[in-house]
């Protein structure tokens, strides 16, 4: 237990020294993010434990002149390259291994740990050159990123408060507690130009100022970790890999606005993130960095996790607050803003996970250094989750102003062979689809807004020629229609109607009138809905109508250019290839296939439901799709 600031500062210095020793010695970092865990990272970790014990290497790291020793085996948080997992980083050499299985562990121990040589076949392939490189730092994907929030990637322990402090963690909290007034902190956050990372991009400093200036005997701080956007997992990654960074940001926020209690709202779908954050809270309490009378300064602050129970609308701040109170997560009109009247009517400061993670960095580095990253209107970095048929998928961090081209081609190595780029979906269901022409547009809040898109929480999904843009719009409206809370009519009925029209398009039943109705409806929903969900729900329609209208028109003329929409497909049996076995006829649920055994069969187009079951059953590849 640390009882005052000097003691805490000494503790941090001591941990720094220990970490230096550790890194120059042998350390094995196994990535245990959700991606790697799903691919068997825990099995790899346990196998390392077993082999190291057998070889007598388990407590080989000397920490001091005394007999203090530690295991070289560590768990690290997501390294961002989820598609290459499980990942293992071996220090001091820095050999970075991908696709590690339990059978490789013995090899790594023999070659790398005992003899300091790399296991060539496990080294990471640089997507830019297709060659194997020894360390993560040598890859083009590392050099093209700006790891700032994700500092010390691949060599930080996700479950250790000592390691976080050894990396300089909680120094910002000490700096704040030992001599910064709330006004000075608000000024620093305002001057940093930090904007809300949850999607809207509202200036964080203004929120903090409003919450600080509200007069009340009780105030709350809330962390929004209800990352419901399909295609986004930055918040999950951050909470799993460096939970203390978020926690430190929240404590500083509490001190600044004068709150006594905070809630971290995290989706129940993220069990690892909840576990990690709970451990971070417990560890910080044990050390006296959280709880009653923090470091003897008289400032008391407590953080509690609230699990989200699965509702996209709860990402909207007023809906999230209702959910914390144990109610249905329905938004309400603003003003009053949460900074004036939030949880149970008390002033509440609510920010996104990634926003809080920026705070300790701003305090540590100062405004000037912070603003060196990014562009004037959007300073700093942003984490993006990049998915789709790319050579590398996972989490990246780049400064604002980076182009999509750099992200897709330089960092992620471009599309996998045989795929052709068509568009990028950015910002989830509230975001937009951008075509090839936008590849060189710098990504920041304002430029994206001028293109009717938004940063959203930061999901980037690459779409290829195989995907139909009308179907993409239908997919997102299906999502928002289901997730609409039903409170206001434009959103509840509007998304339903827009979805119905889009479905008509994909089924080949739409008319020119439908196209006009869709355009009108999209504008109407956008301008009249109550909360952010409804206001942004039509964005996928508006952007696809703007950039891919030709696809909508093709659907009116009976053609789906990408061949995705089944209604436009025609299944026929190649009369030469068919052997007349009758398997397809038996599989057809519609009874649409008829024929005589031994002779080629035929499909009745009127009856065919285009389910594709016959294609799977045919052993002679005789069924063709037109």
């Amino acid at each position, binding site marked *: 237990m640390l009882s005052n600031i000097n003691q805490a500062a000494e503790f941090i210095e001591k941990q720094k020294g220990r970490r230096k020793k550790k890194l120059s010695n042998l350390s094995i970092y196994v990535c245990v993010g959700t991606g790697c*865990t799903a691919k068997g990272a825990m099995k790899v970790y346990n196998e390392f434990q077993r082999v190291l014990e057998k070889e007598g290497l388990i407590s080989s790291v000397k920490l001091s002149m005394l007999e203090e020793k530690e295991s070289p085996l560590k768990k690290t948080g997501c390294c961002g390259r989820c598609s290459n997992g499980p990942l293992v980083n071996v220090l001091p050499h820095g050999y970075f291994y991908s696709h590690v299985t339990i059978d490789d562990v013995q090899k790594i121990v023999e070659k790398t740990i005992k003899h300091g040589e790399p296991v060539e076949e496990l080294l990471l392939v640089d997507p830019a050159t297709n060659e194997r490189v020894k360390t993560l730092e040598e890859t083009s994907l590392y050099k093209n990123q700006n790891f700032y929030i994700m500092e010390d990637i691949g060599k930080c322990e996700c479950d250790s408060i000592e390691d976080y402090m050894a990396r300089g963690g909680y120094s910002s909290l000490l700096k704040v507690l030992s001599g910064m007034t709330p006004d000075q902190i608000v000024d620093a956050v305002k001057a940093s130009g930090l904007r809300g990372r949850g999607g809207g991009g509202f200036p964080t400093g203004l929120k903090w100022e409003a919450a600080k200036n509200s007069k009340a005997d009780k105030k709350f701080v809330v962390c929004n970790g209800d990352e419901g956007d399909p295609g986004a997992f930055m918040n999950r990654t951050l909470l799993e890999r460096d939970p203390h960074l978020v926690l430190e940001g929240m404590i500083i926020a509490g001190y600044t606005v004068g709150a006594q209690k905070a809630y971290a709202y995290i989706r129940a*779908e993220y069990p690892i993130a909840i576990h990690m954050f709970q451990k971070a809270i417990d560890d910080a309490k044990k050390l006296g960095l959280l709880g009653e009378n923090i470091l003897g300064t008289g400032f008391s602050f407590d953080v509690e996790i609230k*699990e989200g129970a699965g509702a996209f609308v709860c990402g909207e701040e007023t809906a999230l607050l209702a959910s914390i109170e144990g109610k249905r997560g329905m938004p309400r009109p603003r003003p009053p803003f949460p900074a004036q009247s939030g949880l149970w009517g008390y002033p509440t400061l609510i920010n996104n996970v990634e926003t809080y993670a920026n705070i300790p960095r701003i305090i540590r580095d100062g405004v000037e250094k912070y603003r060196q990253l990014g562009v004037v209107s959007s300073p700093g970095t942003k984490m993006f989750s990049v998915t789709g048929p790319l050579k590398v998928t996972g989490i990246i961090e780049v400064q604002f102003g980076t182009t999509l081209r750099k992200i897709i081609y330089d960092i992620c190595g471009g599309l996998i062979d045989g795929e052709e780029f068509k568009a990028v979906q950015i910002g989830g269901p509230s975001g937009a689809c951008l075509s090839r022409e936008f590849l060189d547009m710098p990504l920041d809040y304002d430029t994206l807004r001028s293109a009717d898109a938004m940063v959203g929480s930061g999901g980037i999904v690459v779409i290829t020629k195989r995907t139909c843009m009308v179907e993409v719009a239908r997919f997102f409206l299906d999502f928002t229609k289901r997730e609409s809370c039903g409170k206001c009519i434009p959103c509840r009925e509007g998304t339903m109607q827009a979805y119905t029209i889009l479905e008509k398009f994909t089924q080949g039943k739409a008319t020119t009138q439908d196209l006009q109705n869709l355009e009108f409806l999209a504008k109407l929903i956008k301008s009249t809905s109550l909360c952010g969900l409804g206001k942004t729900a039509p964005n996928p329609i508006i952007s696809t109508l703007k950039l891919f209208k030709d696809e909508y028109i093709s659907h009116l003329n009976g053609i789906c250019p990408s061949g995705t929409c089944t209604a436009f497909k025609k299944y026929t049996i190649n009369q030469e290839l068919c052997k007349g076995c009758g398997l397809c006829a038996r599989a057809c649920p519609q009874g649409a296939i008829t024929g005589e055994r031994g002779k080629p069969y035929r499909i009745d187009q009127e009856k065919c439901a285009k389910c594709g079951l016959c294609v799977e059953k045919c052993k002679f590849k005789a069924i063709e799709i037109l």
Partner: protein
Amino acid sequence: MERTFQKVEEILKKHEYKKENLIRILLDVQKQYRYLPEDVINYIGVALQLPPAKIYGVGTFYAQFSLKPKGKYTILLCDGTACHMEGSISLLKAIEEELNIKPGEVTKDLVFSVDQVGCLGACALAPAMVINEEVYGNLTPEKVKEIIKKLKEGEKDAQ
């Protein structure tokens, strides 16, 4: 079926009989019974002094809750953007073939249930599914069938 509500009492106690903890209480009830039974909803209503209709309202609002029993193995098939584009529909077909149930349904023996969910945040592993908190990624219809078959066998052995 008679219920003693002992488990419910434990859950309520753990969450200090607080109205604000209703969602947590329901999450625990859902875990315990694999759904929110009507009599339990009424019981919680009396204990927290909330009308059962309010609890029903919360229960139907969030995707984590179900008013019908879920299977021992709850399969959550991701239909988020990345998974959708990587063919999650073909995985659903495979599950339907293997278990004969549709999304939102449960097998007669209450062992398996299937739900389609928005996004599991495992997009880099698309298409993905989660069975009882374990994530399975980079799936194909064949892999899905194999996973379910293995669970079925394990279930038989347990009996």
